[in-house]
């Protein structure tokens, strides 16, 4: 019998911890989650089983479809808002600011909020939008309104605002990276060939930055899709998102099989989005070769 060589032992030693971590905390839970999704609930117990009742319930009960569609809608709106804010910001950073120092400073200003607790940043918007919040005080001191309005907080708009604020750096970063990598010579060449700034943006800068937009949109969408804090803090009664529903199934409702089925569904949706964006990114990268 051959003795394992020392290099094999080294390799095993080096990778056993991360591999074990991935197996125990990622792969096993996924398998459990998918398996439990087929179980049956017999209150107060869950019985191992293989049936599609949980999934049928998800698709037939309008409560679930409504929440899933709403989550998709809010994630899409957040992605759209982040793109509208993030692209011009990244463009401004790369093409308008001439000083490297100032550019780095503004870029850091965009990124630094990521180092602050997520909860804190979400909570800030509760303070800004609330009845005695900063926005109401400002409007009142300007004389635009007489009494504080409660229209800003506890609705889907507040959720979109909060989530956009929180996730916009994830949109800015990849777009900034691709814009910075566009050779300035290409822009000069376009202008040299008689095409003005707008045409140059349309025909050169936009197509060459598509990869960053896809990456940013994918991150922003997936992060907002799975968010459950903003609905709790600033969302109103019609602000429930998929993640809140999941939380309920594993908590108050005590229906793990249904929760697992829902979680599996969310996982499939996210994987589908990743597959589509991955394909789009590869297509745009192929374009550049």
């Amino acid at each position, binding site marked *: 019998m051959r003795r394992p060589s020392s290099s094999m032992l080294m390799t095993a030693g080096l990778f056993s911890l991360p591999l074990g971590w991935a197996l125990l905390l990622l792969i096993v839970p996924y398998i459990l989650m998918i398996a439990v999704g087929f179980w049956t609930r017999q209150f107060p117990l869950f019985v191992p089983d293989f049936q599609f009742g949980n999934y049928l319930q998800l698709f037939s009960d309008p409560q679930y479809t409504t929440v899933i569609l709403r989550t998709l809608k809010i994630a899409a709106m957040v992605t759209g808002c982040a793109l509208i804010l993030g692209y011009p910001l990244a463009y401004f950073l790369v093409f308008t600011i001439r000083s490297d120092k100032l550019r780095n400073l503004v870029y850091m200003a965009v990124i630094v909020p990521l180092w602050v607790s997520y909860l804190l940043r979400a909570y800030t918007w509760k303070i800004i939008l609330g009845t005695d919040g900063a926005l109401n005080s400002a409007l009142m001191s300007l004389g635009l309104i007489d009494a504080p309005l409660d229209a800003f907080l506890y609705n889907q708009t507040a959720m979109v605002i909060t989530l956009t604020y929180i996730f916009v750096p994830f949109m800015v970063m990849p777009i900034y990276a691709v814009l910075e990598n566009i050779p300035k010579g290409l822009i000069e*060449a376009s*202008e*040299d060939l008689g095409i003005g700034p707008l045409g140059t943006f349309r025909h050169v800068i936009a197509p060459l930055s598509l990869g960053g937009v896809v990456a940013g949109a994918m991150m922003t969408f997936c992060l907002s899709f799975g968010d459950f804090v903003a609905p709790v803090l600033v969302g109103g009664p019609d602000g429930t998102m998929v993640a809140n529903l999941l939380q309920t199934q594993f908590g108050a409702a005590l229906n793990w099989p249904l929760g697992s089925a829902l979680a599996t569904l969310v996982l499939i949706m996210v994987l589908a989005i990743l597959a589509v964006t991955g394909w789009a990114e590869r297509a745009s990268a192929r374009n550049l070769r």
Partner: protein
Amino acid sequence: MSSRPIVTLDGVTKSFGSFKALHETSFSIGEGEFVTLLGPSGCGKTTTLRLIGGFELPTTGKIGIAGQDVTHNPPYRRPVNTVFQDYALFPHMTVAENVAYGLTVRGSTVARSDIPRQVGEVLEMVGLSHMGGKRPGALSGGQKQRVAMARALIRKPRVLLLDEPLSALDVKLREVMQVELKRLHRELGITFLMVTHDQTEALALSNRIVVMEAGRIRQIGTPNDLYDRPATPYVADFIGATNLIEARYEGREAGFEVITLPGGAKLRRKASGNGFHPGSEVLIGIRPEHLSPAVGDNLVQGRVVDTLFHGDSIRLEFLPDGATQPAFAQLARGSSLSADALMPGQPIRFAVAPEDVMLFPKVAA
């Protein structure tokens, strides 16, 4: 310059912060000329080209193209097109799309239906007819170069600006492309303005050369002018090589000017009008190819330092008597000198024709 000017620079300067990239510069280029801006890197030649292309705005002065003041026009409002040093081909477009790009501008006089025909014509002109569907990433350096040419030429510019167009190519290909550039210039009749640091390229291609150094024009002239009558030691050494030797001007004698070499020997030079006083310190310039080992009476003497075999010729390094800097001579292979005579330390002498001795004022180093 015989034809009417197509590009004129009038008192143009360019500063980047406190750095003066271009000191006050004025010159003009005639319609149909092939002019080269020649100089080492950092001499301001690329800045000059970018000012004409509109990628930089001058700090002071005026730039005119085809009789129009374009000093403050952006690149897309100038009747010039550029072949960029790194070609700057659009990676997301095919070769044909790259070439067609400049015709898609709004308000173009070219009908959309006519674009494919014109693209085909230009691609044929640069020898890439079958490459239209490829992407730039799939092309070789020489092919990219041709696409860049085609893309600029399809717009029928009044002036074609070429920024070190051949510097990224290997030697063989560079020679092929030089011939190609010359042919295109002849066939199209467009004015070419090229930037290069390669003097052989400049001498081979241009009608006129603008020699630049440290943000200033040192001399403008035909290749022959610059080679035969360089205005300064710098130009003499940059256009072809020149041995520069410190010497003393003695005066005129029977239609010749007499110069004393540091070793004490006298050298005669064909007289020309100059303002030197007898006894003043001067620099003489002699090109290596004008030093002949044949015996004569106008001699430069020294000792051999080293020899370098160059294939078709031998480059001989020698120290002229009394000089501090070595000089070079170019000997034809199989010259009359024996191998023994070329050993380091051997005394050697070269004859030089009086008309081949150049004379410059001595400049403070």
